[in-house]
């Protein structure tokens, strides 16, 4: 269990054949839609709208149902994220330890608001509501690597890492 797993995620370009293959791999599970969507996003980095009718057809549900599910969950992206994804916990246990000031600092340092990607496509800044690190708060995750006891110095180091 390495904490560095998804440091640099490499994604494949979207393809319908690969999509069909992924669907086939998960189709026989009970309640296969979420596992399929997770697998699509892990492969392509986002869920292309062109994938939705293919999934719908394979599972014998409507396109609207698939689209409804994709858009309901915060995890699923309609378009690729930046090369790095920086998530800052914005929930109460982190607020109590100074997360609001760090959130403002992150926005200022990156020049984007939460939920947005920098113009150069370098980094997407996202809020997360709890990483379960509430006793060592505030916390953040850069490309899946979790960091606790965040302070201004550690945050700046994370931002600097996205420049590499």
């Amino acid at each position, binding site marked *: *269990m*390495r*904490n*560095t*797993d998804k440091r640099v995620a490499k994604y494949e370009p979207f393809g319908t054949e690969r999509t069909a293959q992924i669907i086939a791999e998960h189709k026989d*599970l*009970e*309640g*296969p*839609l*979420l*596992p399929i*969507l*997770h697998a699509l996003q892990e492969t392509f980095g986002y869920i292309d709208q062109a994938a939705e009718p293919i999934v719908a057809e394979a*599972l014998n549900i409507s396109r609207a*149902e698939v689209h*409804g*599910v994709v858009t*309901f*969950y*915060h*995890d*699923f992206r309609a378009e690729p994220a930046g090369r790095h994804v920086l998530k800052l*916990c914005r*929930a*109460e*246990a*982190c*607020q*109590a*330890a100074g997360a609001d000031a760090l959130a403002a600092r992150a926005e200022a340092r990156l020049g984007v608001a939460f939920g947005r990607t920098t113009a150069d496509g370098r980094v997407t800044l996202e809020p*997360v*509501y*709890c*990483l*379960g*690190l*509430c*006793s*060592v*708060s505030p*916390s953040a995750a850069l490309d*899946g690597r*979790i*960091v*606790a*006891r965040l302070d201004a110095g550690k945050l700046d180091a994370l931002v600097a890492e996205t420049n590499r």
Partner: protein
Amino acid sequence: MSALRIYVPGDAAAAACGADEIAVAIAALAAKRKISVEIVRNGSRGMHWLEPMLEAATEGGRIAYGPVKLADVESVFEAMVAGGGEHKLRVGVPEEHPFLKRQTRLTFARCGIVDPRSLEDYEAHDGYKGLAKAVANHGGIVEEVIQSGLRGRGGAGFPTGIKWKTVAETKADRKYIVCNADEGDSGTFADRMIMEGDPFVLIEGMTIAGIAVGAAKGFIYIRSEYPHAIAMMTDAIGIARCAGMLGKTVAGSAFAFDLEVRVGAGSYVCGEETALLESLEGNRGQVRAKPPLPAHKGLFGKPTIVNNVLSLATVPVIMDKGAAFYKNFGVGRSRGTMPIQLAGNLNYGGLFETPFGITLGALVNDIGGGCFTGRPVKAVQVGGPLGAYFPPSLFDTPFDYEAFAARDGLIGHAGVVVFDDTVDMAKQARFAMEFCAIESCGKCTPCRIGSTRGVEIVDKIINGENPEKNIELLADLCNTMKFGSLCALGGFTPYPVVSALTHFPEDFKPARQREAAE
């Protein structure tokens, strides 16, 4: 000479404090020094201010050091090689530390002690004893769980045994056991710690549940924010299956039971049991109206037990030591122990399992050691984002489902988040409404619309627009949400809002008035 065994927690909280890098550094140092070491990635003991807390197995038992930074690795390693020698970071025997010594660890008995990926280690520490008794007397499991007084640890506090009895008595061709591991409440991490530190206890608890009600299949729905827990549970299920502890003949018995991990997708409301079932089925995580109860018509329309991680992980010790043993702990109708999570602005945050009945003040001040900022405590939110804010004047409240309810609060999943006197409670009330708006599933109007209107009203109050009228309106809105919402998201969001208004009215005065008063 056998290898020196060194424990470096693999728990996410330890990893986030640098434990992975330290494990690598120790391995490199041992290789360089040609000293044979065995590094065990254990769970966390729950003393999180000491993480990463390393332990060495010595002749005199395990000796801990923490919090270890990369720069300390060499000197700590020397002390460990010397048989648990002196060091400025030496904690000593972990069990002797007051934070652990004051606890009663039943659910967390093995967490931080065993190698979570070792079934042998699990069995050597009383693992699967509960299952053996359950298999031998499968007709008596439900009654044992009822007698133990165990109530849902997810927050609702519904008697676990009664839920099981309903499923057991419902006839169907298939039944399911669903573990709710969508631990989304801020300030909570007990489910995560158990899954990462003692995964087999959850597998054992779910297996016992399956045998009790006649279900052969279980799902563990883990939130996507917990990659360490997902990896650990997936590995543990594979190990248990290979060892014959899951599958067609569980532990060589006539019972079949198997498990699957499912990953959530970032939706808080999926922690609500019916939304969770919808999500498992591949739908939008929208809450279902009850009845029918999940115990009658749950996953794919079949009778289903939906229990929290901690409820299921507590079943093995109840089966092993008996309902009477478990019930003997606690107060009133809150029986047994509760793994309480101390979080936020505290000197000594972590996992504190104790019988029900300890006061909130003891938890915050005596055990948690007050705020790490050195400032006075102003408010404590108990029970996650839907829990009430309590001021220090309510610190005599005992940790007990009914005692908190009597003071318009809830213990929820037992997260305790501490704030110092710099917190602005109007801002916290606004956040509660904002969070509800972000996470509302949209099915019922009080939650979907009410939360957005709530944010607007709090803004008006803060800006000094008709404050008296708007405070009245906010209270009225909270009343509508509380009684008109389908589930706890809309129904309980009023708890933090109303408690903030009730206990901290001065924070709701317009900014100009507040400045003038100071």
